[in-house]
């Protein structure tokens, strides 16, 4: 091998949001080494500042179409939309953590650094234009989350959550990697655009199909669709509640971002195949998720199954296809993120006799002891059911509307029936909070400025998305246009 090496053009502008976040992560590590060593409260502030800065950068770059590193990193409106969702989720999680983590298990620099590294992975997943970047970003996100799930080292459930998440996540990653290898074997490229344009894509090469199936298995684990959902309840229950919120929102949004881009761009030739696959996945996922949620008495487990059901709803939008279907999924993810962070946030701020309060019975009579907190949780749960005028209602409306317009009437009917079933277990919590007598020493609110602020922001988001959804829906629609060119 001789010959000159052509030095590649390094375009850092397409990386800016991720660079800001990873830089903040490095800064947190450095500051952790400097005094004051006893108190770590300032590190949370640094992490929060980094995420807010990334959010501002993202918003300021809206409308650009930046490509860097030979189309490996794409910063288009699609990526920017997800960057906003992810940065919001991570920022709210950091605010919730500032008090919660210190109270439950000792704040440390590693915690915030890993949250930021995980967020970096999420941001890169949203802008990955190459399967190699998809894989590495997914690993960066997941690896940090595996560790964070086991952050409470003295609790067995936390260790169990970490171990299960790690083992099953590693399996999922290997499936994804097999799928990438198959696609590379069939097309000779890992770039999404070049995969779509390769001859194998047109001929319907069997390797290409196998690649699609394996990729769907890998992503199925990360977004927890039903045959691959077993880890979710245990991990959601055992992980620190703030980390659970990040796993349920940020990591899900990021995996969806990569999944939609891979399906719609690289595998658009196989749309009939993956539509059929996702149709059945959607039905099974929402039905089983909702049925299992009915049986839960632990609120974290209930929300875990409910989040599985919500993934089922989002798959409905992918099946519907086209700009309206994909746009509806993006809007749904935005609404779901605000609502879910809020619901887990309330759990993080509730305590009973020094322990976390997670059982439904512990919330009996909460409305009488703390009306504001009870009303907040009630609003989040009503939004998860899909009661107007909250975010969840509008999101479901767009999603099921897109399914009907796409000709999937039966799927929409199943989804609506599922939403009705889901109302039961959400309402049960409301019944406990508002109609039962308070137990002695039931759950109580632990005052926390940052946590309260996070809840307020999430609440404003839920209400704002529900009351005036049009501008946000337009943004979501605009975000998917770069994909469908």
């Amino acid at each position: 091998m001789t010959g000159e090496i052509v030095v590649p053009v390094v375009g850092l502008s397409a990386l800016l949001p991720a660079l800001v976040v990873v830089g903040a992560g490095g800064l947190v590590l450095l500051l952790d080494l400097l005094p004051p060593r006893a108190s770590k409260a300032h590190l949370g502030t640094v992490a929060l500042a980094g995420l807010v800065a990334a959010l501002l950068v993202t918003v300021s770059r809206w409308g650009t179409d930046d490509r860097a590193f030979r189309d490996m990193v794409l910063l288009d409106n699609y990526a920017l939309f997800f960057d906003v969702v992810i940065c919001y989720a991570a920022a709210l999680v950091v605010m919730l953590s500032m008090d919660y983590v210190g109270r439950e298990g000792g704040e440390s620099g590693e915690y915030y650094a890993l949250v930021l590294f995980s967020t970096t992975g999420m941001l890169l997943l949203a802008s990955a234009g190459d399967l190699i970047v998809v894989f590495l970003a997914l690993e960066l996100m997941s690896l940090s989350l595996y560790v964070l799930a086991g952050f409470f080292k003295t609790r067995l459930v936390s260790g169990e959550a970490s171990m299960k998440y790690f083992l099953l996540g590693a399996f999922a990653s290997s499936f994804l990697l097999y799928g990438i290898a198959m696609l590379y074997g069939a097309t000779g490229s890992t770039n999404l655009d070049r995969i779509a344009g390769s001859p194998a894509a047109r001929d319907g090469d069997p390797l290409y199909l196998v690649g699609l199936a394996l990729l769907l298995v890998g992503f199925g684990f990360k977004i927890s669709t039903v045959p691959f959902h077993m880890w979710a309840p245990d991990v959601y229950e055992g992980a620190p509640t703030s980390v659970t919120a990040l796993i349920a929102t940020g990591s899900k949004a990021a995996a969806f971002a990569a999944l939609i881009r891979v399906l719609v761009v690289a595998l658009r030739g196989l749309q009939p195949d993956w539509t059929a696959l996702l149709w059945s996945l959607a039905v099974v996922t929402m039905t089983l998720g909702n049925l299992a949620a009915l049986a839960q008495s632990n609120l974290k487990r209930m929300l875990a199954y409910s989040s599985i059901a919500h993934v089922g709803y989002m798959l409905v939008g992918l099946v519907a296809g086209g700009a309206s279907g994909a746009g509806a999924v993006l809007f749904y993810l935005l609404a779901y993120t605000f609502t879910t962070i809020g619901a887990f946030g309330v759990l993080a701020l509730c305590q009973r006799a020094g322990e976390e309060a997670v059982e439904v019975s512990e919330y009996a009579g909460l409305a009488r002891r703390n009306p504001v907190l009870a009303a907040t949780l009630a609003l989040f749960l009503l939004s998860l059911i899909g009661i107007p005028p909250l975010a969840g209602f509008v999101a479901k409306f767009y999603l099921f509307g897109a399914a009907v317009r796409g000709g999937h009437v039966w799927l929409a009917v199943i989804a609506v029936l599922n939403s009705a079933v889901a109302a039961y277990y959400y309402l049960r919590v409301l019944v406990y909070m508002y109609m039962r007598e308070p137990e002695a020493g039931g759950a109580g609110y632990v005052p926390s400025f940052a946590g309260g602020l996070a809840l307020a922001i999430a609440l404003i988001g839920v209400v704002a998305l529900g009351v005036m959804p049009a501008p946000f829906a337009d943004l979501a629609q605009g975000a998917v246009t770069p994909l469908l060119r």
Partner: protein
Amino acid sequence: MEHVTILMAFAFAAVVAGAMLVVPSLIAPRRLTPVKAQPFESGKDPIEITQGRLAVKFSTVAIFFILIDIELLFIWPWAMLYRKLGWFGFAEMLVFLGILMLGFLYIWQKGGLEWE
């Protein structure tokens, strides 16, 4: 077949190792004494069998070893191309190592490398 020499080296190693296993069993005298039966012939009697739990720090060190090992793997092709890559390659590796040295500094300062 440019790798024949490597294969020959492996084959030679296999033959030597095999011979060391087989030849003594043919010609060596066999006398088992209690001292020989002990797990360690260091002159010190073993206190207990190593059943039970070992400290997690062994595996910590092993994981750090793997991480540094992977790092090394990336430096190898870089070293072969160093002159052709010029200053650009230097900057690339500086960024790569800079990020990893931050991690190294962190685990060092946090006492991750200390045995006790």
